[in-house]
């Protein structure tokens, strides 16, 4: 058997020597032109070249796809952190100079500009993002973005944010890890706002991350009659979740009575099939000490520091 195999395998090389006489007619005459069968060796070469080329192409495509994943998961994060650092520095500088008091309207003019800082004790002390105005692609590459047309931090209505879940700094990577009663802290130039993720009861004066039986599907009863859950998964086209009263188009901003914060990101991870929405309600408001000339004391108050020990990370 093995002899036979070897013989078959070795057959071409011995056949080659007789070939040289062959090619001249083949080359000069243009192959099959003479009506004779095409040279089997030439056909074999072509097939081999084609298969090899196809293989190399597929391997190359595979490597490119892998590199794209690396790009999405790592490289975009480097870019985003650089941008985030830039907007954060700019915001700190404006605050220290006493500039940038947020206008009541015309916020869109600040597109791509830092407007506030976001802290979530559940995600640890390192979790700090400067929120930029606007939610287009360029805005969201810098950090979480504030939807144009939604309310400002602490206002009645909805302070709505969007953020990337995978890559681009991934500010909302762990949005699904938030629990009912967790605090979400927003720092503006003048004030610390502590929002509480809905679900841990009706008293949001103090967020309660360890409320017994608290579930994100527990709802907050808005005075308008709408029930707002702590977390919901909605279709990408459901813009109602960032209304002044989430999911209640009947209530205009002027008639809103509750101060919400809403965060949106993609769901499940790596896809854009759905949106994950987390709603929170304003609990405490801690004004900063005015230092004159539009400047404020920006040391972190003890009540905010205490939130980090409460979640017991």
């Amino acid at each position: 058997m093995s002899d036979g195999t070897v013989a078959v395998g070795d057959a071409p090389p011995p056949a080659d020597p007789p070939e040289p006489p062959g090619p001249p007619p083949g080359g000069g005459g243009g192959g099959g032109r003479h009506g004779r069968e095409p040279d089997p060796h030439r056909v074999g070469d072509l097939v081999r070249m084609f298969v090899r080329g196809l293989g190399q192409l597929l391997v190359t495509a595979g490597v490119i796809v892998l590199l794209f994943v690396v790009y999405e998961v790592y490289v975009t994060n480097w870019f985003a952190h650089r941008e985030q650092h830039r907007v954060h520095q700019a915001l700190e500088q404006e605050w220290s100079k006493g500039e940038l008091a947020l206008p009541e309207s015309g916020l869109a003019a600040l597109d791509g500009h830092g407007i506030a800082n976001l802290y979530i004790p559940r995600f640890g002390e390192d979790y700090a993002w400067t929120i930029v105005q606007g939610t287009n692609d360029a805005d969201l590459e810098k950090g979480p973005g504030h939807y144009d047309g939604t309310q400002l931090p602490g206002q009645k209505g909805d302070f709505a944010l969007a953020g990337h879940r995978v890559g681009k700094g991934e500010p909302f990577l762990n949005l699904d890890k938030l629990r009912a009663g967790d605090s979400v802290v927003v720092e503006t130039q003048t004030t610390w706002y502590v929002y509480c993720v809905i679900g841990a009861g009706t008293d949001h004066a103090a967020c309660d991350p360890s409320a017994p039986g608290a579930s994100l599907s527990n709802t907050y009863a808005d005075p308008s009659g709408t029930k707002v859950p702590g977390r919901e998964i909605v279709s990408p086209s459901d813009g109602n979740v960032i209304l002044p009263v989430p999911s209640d188009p009947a209530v205009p901003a002027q008639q809103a009575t509750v101060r919400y914060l809403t965060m949106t990101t993609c769901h499940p991870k790596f896809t854009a099939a759905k949106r994950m929405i987390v709603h929170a309600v304003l609990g405490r408001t801690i004004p900063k000490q005015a230092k004159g000339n539009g400047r404020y004391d920006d040391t972190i108050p003890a009540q905010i520091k205490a939130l980090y020990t409460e979640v017991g990370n």
Partner: protein
Amino acid sequence: MYVWLWRHLPGGLALKMLQVLVLFLAAVALLMFVIFPWVEPHLPINNVTVPGQ
């Protein structure tokens, strides 16, 4: 195509390998800094927003 490239690179084995490495890194850089950032916005994988008002 890689065979063709390898045959046409000048120099000995070490020099060829060095050139291949440089070419590979150049291709990766082109992908990471030009092509991927350009392609990405056209892919539906990064949408995190809902329609605003």
